[in-house]
């Protein structure tokens, strides 16, 4: 049960997937034209259109080659829906992750189990909320809930991305849901890895791109 983000790369550019784009006003352009001596044979509308498209191409060029497949973490042991929560929680801890994909027998992604899902099932919105309850009553988390299967409280459907998803698609996908990680799906529909939001953010940070 996966869904592709609704926006795809054939859509026209918008402010949402081009956050670095500055909206130039006629006055900005005319001011700039004043600074260039001689008659410029172009309207402000044409200039803006060229600028937008050129900016888009520049972004694509700068960040081409950085795809979900290159950024994702490959070493991920996914959960299956029938695993009880009590066994799933150590898996988060061992892998150092706060979200784990939930897959079926063919490694097709059914959903994602996040720390938030677990906390909500324990009756808390946040870790501190849970801590406050444990301090008050240390028996509160020793309930039957922990033996219920992962499939009951995972987030599904989950927003996932293909291996070749680039900046624009990843940005739209992360913007479209609150999660901190997204499953990356190979061409045959199986789980390929997990893309962490923090890895995505630092990869596209202009000052931290020396490794590219």
């Amino acid at each position, binding site marked *: 049960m996966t869904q592709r983000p609704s926006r795809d790369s054939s859509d026209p550019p918008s402010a949402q997937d081009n956050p670095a784009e500055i909206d130039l006003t*006629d006055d900005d352009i*005319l001011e700039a*034209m*004043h600074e260039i*001596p*001689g*008659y*410029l*044979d*172009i*309207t*402000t*509308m*044409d200039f803006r259109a060229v600028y937008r498209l050129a900016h888009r191409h520049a972004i694509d060029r700068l960040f081409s080659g950085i795809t979900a497949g290159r950024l994702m973490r490959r070493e991920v042991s996914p959960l299956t829906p029938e695993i009880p929560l009590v066994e799933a929680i150590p898996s988060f801890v061992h892998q150092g992750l706060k979200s784990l994909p939930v897959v079926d027998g063919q490694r097709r992604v059914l959903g994602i189990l996040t720390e938030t899902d677990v906390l909500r099932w324990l009756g808390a919105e946040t870790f501190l909320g849970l801590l406050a309850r444990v301090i008050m009553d240390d028996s509160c988390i020793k309930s039957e809930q922990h033996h219920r299967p992962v499939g009951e409280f995972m987030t599904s459907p989950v927003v996932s991305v293909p291996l070749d998803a680039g900046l624009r698609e990843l940005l739209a996908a992360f913007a479209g849901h609150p999660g901190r990680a997204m499953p990356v799906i190979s061409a045959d529909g199986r789980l390929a890895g997990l893309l962490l939001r923090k890895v995505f953010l630092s990869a596209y940070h202009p000052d931290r791109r020396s490794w590219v």
Partner: protein
Amino acid sequence: MRGSLHGSPPRVSRPEVLWSWMGAFLGMAAVAWINQWFFAGTDLTFTIGSLGASAVLVFGAVRSPLAQPRNLIGGHVISALVGVTCWQWLGGEPWLAQSVAVATAIALMHLTRTLHPPGGATALIAVIGSDQVHAMGYLFVLFPATLGPLVLLVAALLFNNLPAARRYPEFWL
């Protein structure tokens, strides 16, 4: 009607107006002088109206792609060829010869990346021109339509690189 009141390029500075005036004066003086001293009394003509339009571009809109050497020379030559051919083939139907000449000139200038608005005038002049123009046949392509723009080009190359604020050409080919 589509379009808006915004977006027109600003008026140029006064020095720029003066530079445009001087450039056009020198360019057209060279063309007219050559016409007067070498072509007066011959069956050939050297000054055609479309050169005035070319002067607007090469001295008034120096940076425009339409004003670059490729467009200046290519646009006139291609359009003149089209115009003379249309006169010779379709001259019996003047309205058809005129319209086909201008339309075809635009199409060929597009295809060859030599779009130069005065080319349309050159094509039209080849059709509606005087008996002298018609009598020249394809010599019209050589004399006014190649050499005329070449004189303007030389003038533009010499003059448009004098002011610090000007540069010509932006590109050659």
